[in-house]
């Protein structure tokens, strides 16, 4: 076996007093951490296999289990921290690129937490959402810049295609393949119940889910997996995926091991062949190419569906966004660098891109400077964690927000960040039938509906506090935000004053 330089990150602590050897931990751990020792009539565990996903902890009926981070470590070193050293061991061992999943865990500033929300006092009344209407309905899509009237002077009310959301929150792209059938079904059901939208991601649309088309955004990515006319017309909108916050500038890779019969059918690729989406779209090497694809898709769907262009938040995002806004796209989706992924090179995930808060602020400002903010809707994502984040995003200028990690958490994800292993104990990021079945869409969709409903209550509560009773009056209303502990540059980019000003 040689020397193993890697030590277990976690220790499984089992309270022998409480353990009733029901063996549920053993049955529920796809990593085979737990096993039953008949001789001693005791459960035993192998810490090296534990990824700290908490499945066993959650199901243990007597709460006899807890997973703790090992306090075994290297000699303190502010520069050569433990994880840095371990990464080197891993690469020295494997010679390969380090893979990681979900959003970056690195300690970058979270600007949401450095902004505070306003409320009314005396000079104007706050509004009680329990007594007064409080509106969160939102339309996404191009708005006409000049009204038109017919010969009798009546307004012509026909507009470019719009997406109507009851709540300005959508489930962002997660492909069938990166997540399970049941995870997708949970999202679809929830989107339908909530009157919002979920996103197929780049994996195509399973035939069973066409029935949720009214609440589906179909994605066209560089791999073009599962893209065909019925697919494009099945959804309510089409999203061109140019990039993803967790891995700007690189493509996707779904290992062949995850490509079973169903997925190969849905993606229109051979079974067990790796699904590789190229880094760029090979028919888009510049902005005018994008315009061509946008109109190709509009043609393919008879101009009935808004086209979303999704990009990762990178340094010159505002210029990019301005280009997209003039490409004919109806909606721009920007994905911040803290956004999640099913699998990405760790170095890319942890070092490439910029925070969504800054990207959003500069894009919104830029589009207004150019007077084209109303020609396009702005959707942002990349670790929106709460209703407060939603409010702040909208006040900074977003029309709606995308959530994925929050949605997965609602489905049971414990952010163990080992999606790439395909052994998700929560039945989310896996294709193994015995694991997939662990996510009952009835339960999953209910939890998603609960989450969004709860957020919506909080959003209305805070809107009322600000004396705002319609979400559009919050959009871009940066006076409702103040910075806390931010420097001049940050404040200037965010376009907000500091608390106290």
């Amino acid at each position: 076996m040689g020397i193993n330089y890697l030590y277990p990150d976690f220790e499984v602590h089992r309270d022998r007093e409480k353990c009733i050897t029901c063996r549920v931990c053993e049955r529920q751990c796809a990593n085979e951490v737990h096993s039953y020792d008949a001789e001693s009539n005791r459960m035993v565990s192998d810490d090296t296999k534990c990824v700290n996903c908490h499945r066993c902890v959650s199901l243990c009926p007597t709460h006899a289990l807890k997973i703790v981070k090992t306090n075994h470590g290297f000699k303190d070193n502010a520069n050569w921290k433990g994880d840095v050293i371990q990464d080197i061991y891993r690469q020295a061992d494997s010679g390969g690129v380090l893979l990681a999943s979900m959003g970056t865990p690195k300690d970058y500033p979270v600007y949401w937490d450095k902004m505070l929300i306003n409320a009314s006092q005396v000079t104007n009344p706050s509004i009680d959402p329990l007594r007064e209407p409080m509106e969160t309905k939102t339309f996404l899509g191009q708005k006409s810049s000049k009204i038109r009237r017919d010969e009798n002077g009546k307004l012509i009310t026909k507009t470019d295609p719009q997406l109507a959301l009851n709540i300005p929150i959508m489930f962002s792209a997660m492909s069938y393949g990166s997540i399970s059938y049941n995870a997708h079904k949970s999202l679809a059901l929830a989107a339908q119940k909530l009157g919002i939208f979920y996103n197929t991601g780049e994996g195509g649309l399973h035939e069973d889910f066409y029935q949720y088309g009214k609440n589906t955004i179909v994605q066209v990515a560089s791999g073009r997996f599962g893209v065909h006319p019925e697919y494009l017309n099945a959804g309510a909108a089409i999203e061109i995926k140019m990039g993803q916050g967790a891995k700007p500038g690189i493509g996707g890779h779904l290992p062949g091991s995850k490509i079973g019969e169903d997925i190969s059918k849905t993606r229109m690729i051979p079974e067990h062949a790796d699904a590789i989406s190229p880094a760029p779209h090979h028919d888009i090497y510049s902005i005018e190419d994008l315009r061509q694809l946008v109109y190709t898709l509009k043609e393919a769907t008879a101009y009935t569906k808004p086209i979303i262009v999704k990009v990762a938040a990178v340094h010159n995002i505002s210029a990019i966004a301005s280009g997209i806004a003039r490409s004919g796209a109806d909606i721009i989706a920007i994905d911040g660098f803290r956004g999640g992924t099913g699998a990405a090179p760790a170095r890319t995930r942890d070092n490439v891109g910029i925070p969504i808060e800054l990207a959003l602020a500069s894009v919104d400002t830029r589009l207004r400077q150019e007077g084209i903010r109303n020609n396009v809707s702005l959707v942002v994502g990349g670790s929106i964690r709460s209703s407060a984040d939603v409010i702040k995003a909208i006040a900074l200028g977003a029309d709606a927000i995308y959530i994925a990690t929050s949605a997965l958490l609602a489905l049971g994800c414990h952010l163990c960040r080992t999606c790439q292993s395909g052994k998700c104990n929560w039945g989310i990021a896996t294709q193994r039938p015995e694991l997939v079945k662990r996510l009952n869409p009835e339960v999953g969709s209910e939890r998603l509906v609960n989450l969004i409903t709860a957020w919506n209550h909080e959003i209305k509560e805070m809107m009322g506090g600000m004396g705002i009773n319609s979400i559009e009056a919050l959009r871009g209303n940066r006076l409702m935000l103040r910075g806390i502990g931010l420097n001049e540059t940050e404040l200037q980019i965010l376009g907000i004053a500091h608390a106290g000003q």
Partner: protein
Amino acid sequence: MEAYHQRLPLEGEERFPSGCAISGIFSRAGNRFSGRSAITSISVMHDRSNGLGGGFAGYGIYPEYKDFYAFHIFYYGNEAKRMCEEYLEEHFDLINLSKIPTEKHHNITDEPLIWRYFVTPLPTKLANSQLDEKEYTARCVIHINSVIKGAYVFSSGKNMGVFKAVGFPEDVGEFYRLDDYKGYSWTVHGRYPTNTPGWWGGAHPFALLDYSVVHNGEISSYDANRRFIEMYGYNCTLQTDTEVITYMIDYLHRRQGLTLEEVSHVIAAPFWSTIGRKSEEEQAEYTYLRNTFASMLITGPFSIILGFNGGLMALNDRLKLRSLVAAEKDDMVYLASEESAIRIIEPNPDRVWHPSGGKPVIITLNK
């Protein structure tokens, strides 16, 4: 100049919430009457103001110059006046210019230079600008107000004029000798800013071209409205509600060509639930307006009286969080924050009513 440099920030340097009193008087028959009744009306609402700003807008007061834009301008110092007049010369024919006649009043102090110009755009300049006359004029006004330090155009319409100052409105009326002006329509405003020294430009009515707005309230949608309207060439230098509301009305009514009715469906749009109960055709129209101009929805409390050539429009926020009373007597229409302000000038009106939230009251001259 020193008045321009206060220790406290001025309008434009910071945003101030404020409470207020408003009143409007209108003769449908177009009979012209002096500003006195407006002074009387506003005086009974003395306690709704705090002496930090008051003003009037009169319509039909310059019949002899009715084809020219009447600019009323504050100057803080002669340098500002020189620069501004230079700019005016470059862009307009100056038909007539004079100091606006005022009368010393013990409550009105620190007055700036107050000048009046009757102008018409230079034909060549106008042609080169490829803009219509109004747009051309509006842009020049916005330019002066945002670029020329110490100069501030506070009235720029035809056959109408705004008169405002720091002080109680009734004193302001006396100061500007409004007995000497006759108009068919008057609006008046008494201001209660919560933390400003008040400067003359910041007083209301706020006006652009012939639109003038008096407003009571504090809108919570301010920055959403401001950041949106500024995309269309407006520059909210004062950061006051009245300013942004005026600009939005100018944009929607003059530039987009919406009717005042339609304008109210944008800025005080009905709730979606209400729209949902309307006929399919109406639904389409209301939805279109609300969606297309979503960022011009005004939330938070407001009651406004919009003055324009030939009419008045009164509008409340959709929850009616501010008081607004209307009354009629023969051809006369009265609007005010408080009924008392009407009764004092018309003790027995034919009809008194409280316009409901979001429903505009539009009055125009009889044809």
